[in-house]
């Protein structure tokens, strides 16, 4: 088992209101799985994904990754964990406007001790894989949505992560670009990458190996797709 979540709870407190975003989540994910998380808006999908990505902390519960408990780790250790193990793909791409596509992708490597020449070759390889090498020197605002998302995928895979987290990766794309992105993700999964994807699209969810449905902060169903 790569990931084991048990009794995960996440509360948000404001001055007067306490909102439960996640409640008693139990979830195990194995190596090489492709999991799609579905559910209506506000059901806690993105919160779950943020906790899986360690950019948000659970209020209670345990999160083990590769057998290691993560909930007690300090911020710096979590940052190290993220840069060594995780790749992110967001609905709104989250590319930095002031950096070129190439620099955006390299960002996933510059916080590790990798020589510049190797960084360059890995970035070039990642861009080739998603087919945006010809846009390397452009800025995000000069690219179409599909191209930006492919750049974001290149950034997610350039570090050769053990887990790829995708938060509605096709949400801002048209059908054609959405399909292209799903093709890339499937290929990556076929090559052995573990992927967890939040999506609103049933057809894209069906492309995953397993589907987890959420409602009101809880997992209501977890089924394996017949492929």
């Amino acid at each position, binding site marked *: 088992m790569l990931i084991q979540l048990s009794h995960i709870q996440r509360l948000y407190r404001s001055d007067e209101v306490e909102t439960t975003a996640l409640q008693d989540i139990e979830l195990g994910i194995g190596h090489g799985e492709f999991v799609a998380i579905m559910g209506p808006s506000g059901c806690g999908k993105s919160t779950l994904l943020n906790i899986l990505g360690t*950019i*948000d902390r659970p209020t209670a519960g345990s999160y083990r990754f590769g057998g290691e408990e993560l909930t007690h780790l300090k*911020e*710096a250790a979590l*940052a190290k964990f993220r840069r060594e193990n995780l790749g*992110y793909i967001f609905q*709104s791409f989250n590319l930095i406007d002031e950096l070129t596509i190439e620099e955006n992708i390299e*960002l996933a490597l510059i916080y590790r001790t990798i020589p510049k020449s190797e960084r360059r070759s890995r970035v070039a390889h990642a861009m080739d894989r998603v087919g945006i090498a010809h846009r390397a020197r452009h800025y995000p605002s000069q690219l179409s949505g599909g191209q930006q998302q492919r750049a974001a995928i290149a950034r997610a895979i350039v570090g050769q992560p053990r887990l790829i987290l995708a938060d509605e990766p096709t949400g801002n794309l048209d059908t054609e670009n959405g399909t292209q992105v799903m093709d890339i993700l499937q290929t990556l999964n076929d090559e052995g990458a573990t992927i967890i994807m939040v999506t609103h699209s049933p057809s894209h969810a069906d492309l995953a190996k397993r589907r987890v449905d959420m409602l009101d902060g809880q997992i209501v169903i977890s089924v394996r797709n017949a492929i």
Partner: protein
Amino acid sequence: MIASIFRSVLRQTRRHPLYVGLNIFGLALGIGVFLTLTLLVRYEYSFNAGFTDADRLARMDERWSMPGTTPYESADVSFRAVPFFKQDFPEIEEVVTFTKTNLYVQKNGQFTHFAGQTTDPAFFRMLSLRFLHGNPATALTRPDGLVLSQRTAMTLFGKYDVLGKIVEINRSGQKTIQVVTGILAAPPSPGLLDDVDMLLPVTPQERLTRSCFRFWGSSCGEILLKFRRPEDIASVNARLFDFVNTRAAGPADDDVSLGPAPTKTYTLSIVPILKMHFHDVNVEDTDNSVEQYVIDSIGLIGLLALILGCANAVNLATARAGLRAREVALRKTLGAPRHVLFGQFMGEAMVVSLVAGLCGLAFCEAFTPAIASITGEAIRVDYGFIGLLLPLVIISSGLASGVYPALVLSGYQPAAILAATRMPAGGRRAALLRNGLVVGQFSIAICIVICTLVIDRQTSFMRNADRGYVRSGLLIGQQMHSQDIGLQRRMMDTLRAIPGVTSVTLGELEPNPHSLTRTTFLHEGSKGRIKVQMLRDRVSSDYRDTYQPHLLAGRWFDAEHGQDDGPSNEEFENGNGNWNVIINSKAARAFGFEKADDAVGKILRTDAKHFTIIGVIEDIRFSSPRESISPEILFFSSLQRIAFDNPVPAVRFSGVTRMLMAERLDRAWRTLLPDVASHFAPADELMETYYSGDERRGNLFTLGAVAALLIACLGLYGLAAFAAARRVHEIGIRKTLGATAGQTLVLLLQDFLKPVFVACFMACPVSWLLMRQWLNGFDERIALSPALFLLAIGGAALIATCTVLGQTLHLARAEPARALRAE
């Protein structure tokens, strides 16, 4: 429209109190500093400007260029030329002499000092001075007349209407009875009559006996002139060379004239009184002068503070523009035309500028007394002037700080703004402008900081520099105003007998000397005939123990050696003979001796007199640190045969406090010279005037530096706050990708401090050039060490880091999930 502008400013203040507060505070500080320093600059430029026909008034200066010494200009001149001026130059309407004199009024054994001037009856007419009481035309026509300043009348009698009252004046022991014939109204501007308490007529006896009325080579006071037309000044000035050659020439052995070719060493030149305040920096026997470029620099600091304040406002406003982009887009969508929006934003800038202007006025009120006490100048907030200046400042800073942001804001395209997920940053140009403004602000601030450090180092260097004698444990008295050898001996004995006194000496020169006598000496050596004009001093025994000068070579004077004693003044003027002398190291070098030892045993000549150098001492600095040390020759008197000319006693003491010792000395002095006021003071006190001016200006620069740094930091803070708001999202992405808080912190600090370091590179060369020029004005000066520059840069970087650290830490610590949602 106006109501909506005010409403909008109020709403902004409520919603973003930090931004609005920074904006107003920065601008107010800039305006406050600008107003205050403008008042100071205006004051310094107003010297003598208030006198009627000031452009026709001038002073006659002498310029001496004697062999072996640096040429110098002196305001105290010979009055020998006075009768010839009107004869030779019809352009001259009036000539008067104006001679400083120390006056005392003695009451119950206590002396009160008054600064006096002796002058001619035409003085008041020439300057069109107003009297509170009395008649300016006749006030000084009687020889016992006396004109008082308002302050002096109040000090002496407690009222202004004191015509006909009798005042007994004590002039260095000589007592005269004077009758008050006029009370002078306050002078129309600072300058000529500053610190003048009393004016007396020149007595007929003085005209006959005082050497400066008789000899071209002797000087005692100033000559003031009034020309018929302003342009006459230049035309007369051009003919003074011929005038000197005609009027000051005479046979070589004539005491009255300056020899057959007087212009070889002596010329006259006219200084318009409007230029005196700045010109007198390089003129001897003047005080209360200041370098024009220092005043201009102070004015520049004021202007820069205002510019910094405006830059700060532009910076914050363009940064905030993004926050208001949606408001603009919505207004435009609802049909607001661009010019209306432009008017709205300009109006807001004007309101902010108005509030800042009023706060700035409050700052100015608070700063002015402080500046007045630091500079010692009588500056006050002149509401007539401020009333004219402030509206201009408010309007121009409103325009300067409002136009660009208003253009940017009113130019937003609504569709793009409403569709975008992020607030617009204004593009690369705006970013460049913001960074450029911070670079500019810090360049100015760092430049001022470096100048401040250099000025501070130089002033403390001057204070602490070795002056060639030991200052601690030394008290110096007044001139004795006596040629009586018996009295001089008794003074030595009386002072020596006081408990705590370890040695006593007499000298004719003292720190900040009361008069200087120079004579040219000749040496014929291996390098040929070398003539050097030397300053003459005469010292008694125990001079070495008292002042403790450093003897570099040879021996000190000894009463046992017959040739050490002398010459007397008469022997020096007329006689011939051989005497032993000591010279200073500057003189030894001027005569071409490479080592001090080489000078010992050598002969100096003047006329038929021979002087054998028996010792060389290190240079003693009694004069201003701005002047170069004069070559100096020391004669000796054992007080057996030769009297001193108005000697000044100096006392070395130990085992008692300075205050107590001064009190004992003053008491002892009174037993011998009851009519001459005594004030034994340490050397530093006597030389205070040489140092205080530069120190005060140093303090001004410190204030300027603090203000500039403060405003620059406000600018940087605003930039950081803006960047922090804009970069939350980016930081979220970076952290999601594995950046630690530490890495993020370093990245942000680098970005924020980059403009500061660019500013350092720009500020260093500029301040280096400025300070090199300033330091060149000093005879002894510090080196412009890189340490000072590094210190300023380090300080600025530290202050800048502290400024942005809060924002940066907050940003670097932000949780990535929350940061990403911030979109």
